[in-house]
């Protein structure tokens, strides 16, 4: 049965129908992938629409401070009467945008370094030893030092978080490129007169796309955690901009009388990071056939 349908599938003229059916059946075939994507998309949507659906996150209301969650204040209020719901949703923007910016920056730089190191063997040792050196620096220490030196701006925070992630991405990409460059079809492309740029772009990078996507989801997750840690330590997002990290830092003092101030941003961070990690795992299972369990093609 499956054999006949596969044979018919070869000559199916309208591939778009197949593609639509494949996407429509995704929640059934890949429940983890679908769930994590849905969660991340929901958080992304919340981050975008938060200014329109919540009160001003900076509005003080000292009369109604430290109120527990209610219908009017779904996540309660903090020690100066600001809405924790509004602040947590605004914090989503900070976390997600830092996560995405770090993921993009790390991917761009890490992939370039990894491809160069993996394909051009002469520079490999020098570049990778430099990467090892960067990796040896503790990420948080480096970030705090950078923020202390230059000051806490979004650019500095993103740079500070990206820097220690770049070697990890470079290693993953280098490892893929090292195996891909030995493939016979790459040799065939060289014999067919391919320029180095064409060989890298057409024959090697597409093969490394899987590991790159997986690694960038992990970078996305760990960047959000690092941003929260930095903000918690007071070296990250400035206090006037609500972020999950500095909300938790402020809420820590009221943990015993108003646990919701710390609890809700922590919960949202946990869910987002979990969703990102699950997405990474699901993608790895899907894209890397050596991990069993994913749907084989």
């Amino acid at each position, binding site marked *: 049965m499956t054999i006949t349908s596969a044979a018919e599938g070869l000559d199916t003229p309208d591939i778009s129908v197949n593609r639509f059916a494949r996407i429509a059946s995704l929640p059934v075939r890949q429940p983890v992938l679908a769930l994590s994507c849905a969660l991340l998309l929901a958080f992304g949507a919340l981050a975008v629409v938060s200014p329109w659906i919540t009160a001003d996150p900076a509005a003080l209301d000292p009369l109604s401070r430290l109120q527990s969650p209610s219908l009017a204040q779904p996540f309660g209020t903090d020690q100066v009467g600001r809405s924790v719901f509004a602040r947590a949703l605004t914090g989503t923007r900070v976390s997600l945008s830092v996560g995405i910016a770090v993921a993009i920056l790390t991917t761009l730089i890490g992939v370039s370094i990894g491809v160069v190191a993996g394909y051009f063997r002469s520079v490999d040792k020098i570049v990778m030893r430099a990467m090892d050196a960067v990796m040896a620096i503790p990420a948080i220490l480096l970030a705090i030092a950078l923020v202390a030196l230059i000051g806490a701006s979004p650019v500095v925070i993103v740079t500070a978080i990206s820097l220690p992630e770049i070697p990890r991405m470079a290693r993953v990409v280098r490892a893929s490129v090292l195996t891909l460059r030995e493939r016979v079809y790459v040799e*065939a492309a*060289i014999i*067919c*007169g391919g320029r180095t740029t064409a060989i890298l772009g057409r024959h090697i990078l597409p093969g490394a796309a899987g590991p790159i996507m997986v690694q960038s989801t992990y970078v996305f997750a760990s960047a959000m955690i690092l941003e929260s840690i930095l903000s918690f330590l007071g070296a990250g997002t400035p206090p006037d901009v609500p972020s999950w990290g500095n909300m938790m830092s402020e809420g820590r003092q009221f943990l015993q009388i108003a646990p919701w101030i710390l609890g809700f941003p922590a919960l949202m961070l946990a869910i987002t990071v979990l969703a990102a990690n699950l997405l990474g795992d699901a993608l790895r299972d899907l894209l890397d056939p050596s991990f069993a369990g994913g749907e084989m093609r």
Partner: protein
Amino acid sequence: MSAVLEVSGLTQIFTSRKGPFGLFGRRELRAVDDVSFAVARARTFCLVGESGCGKTTIGRMVVRLLRPTAGSVHINGEDFGNLSGETLRKKRQQVQMVFQDPLACLNSRMTAAEIVEEPLQNFGIGDAMSRRRKVARLFDQVGLPQHFRARLPHHLSGGQRQRLGIARALAADPALIVADEAVAALDVSIRSQILNLLKDVQREIGISYLFISHDLAVVRYLADDVAVMYLGAVVEQGPAETVFAAPAHPYTRALIDSVPAVHPRNRRRRAPLEGEVPSAASLPSGCRFRTRCPFATDICARHAPAVTEITPGHAVACHHARSLPRFDAPGPGRTATPDAVA
């Protein structure tokens, strides 16, 4: 006679470092040692030998996936072995390759038409329209239906994939195609189709082949000239008919004897080779075949035999080439190519 490919003194030495950090010197491995031959236009030159004898390394040097350690590779009289960079890339148009594994040599993300068009794009041949026409012509030439153009390699059968590989090799109008075990991975029936395709193409456009194989039946069917290799060196070389009818080197004889007979009536008494192929990292003194040669004498251990012509065009590297017992060569029927040859 102007040769399409002329190889002389070709040598490849692989070095690896010994011990931690390479502190204990280098280990040298002579994969190919001073090999010379020439391939004329519209002719097929076959390299035969056991696996590990260096025939593939020669192929890789001829297509310049490897730079020769020493010696020269000339294509149509022009240097190819020492080029690099953009001059090498442009010159690659002259030498294309057909691979052993027809699936591994095709990028699984590219359609059949894209694969065949790639060399045309790379070498800047024609505009988009003329390239499309050329791809269509190539599909006809190798016997692939036009509606396969949008298919991916894994949608094709093994024989169709190899036809696609041949179409790609032909696309840039090369003077020489290096075929490394090009039919070894195919079914016997498909094998003869591909061999016939290669022959037909040669007849049509006068292309030359450097065909690398361990399969004597295939070599016998295809070859105009043969070089038999053992441990990185050519031990016997000459026109295919002569070499198969009157093999003058003990190793060539052993190779021919080792082909199993198709019919029990043709079964031969044979003296199989004893022992293992020595390591290319520590070659025996004198003749490199002496450790397994039934005719070896003292001189074989002391002096490496020079390559000498015993009849015009037929050269052998053996001290005893003229004094070996007569060899009753099997008839062509016994080692003929797969019966499916039409």
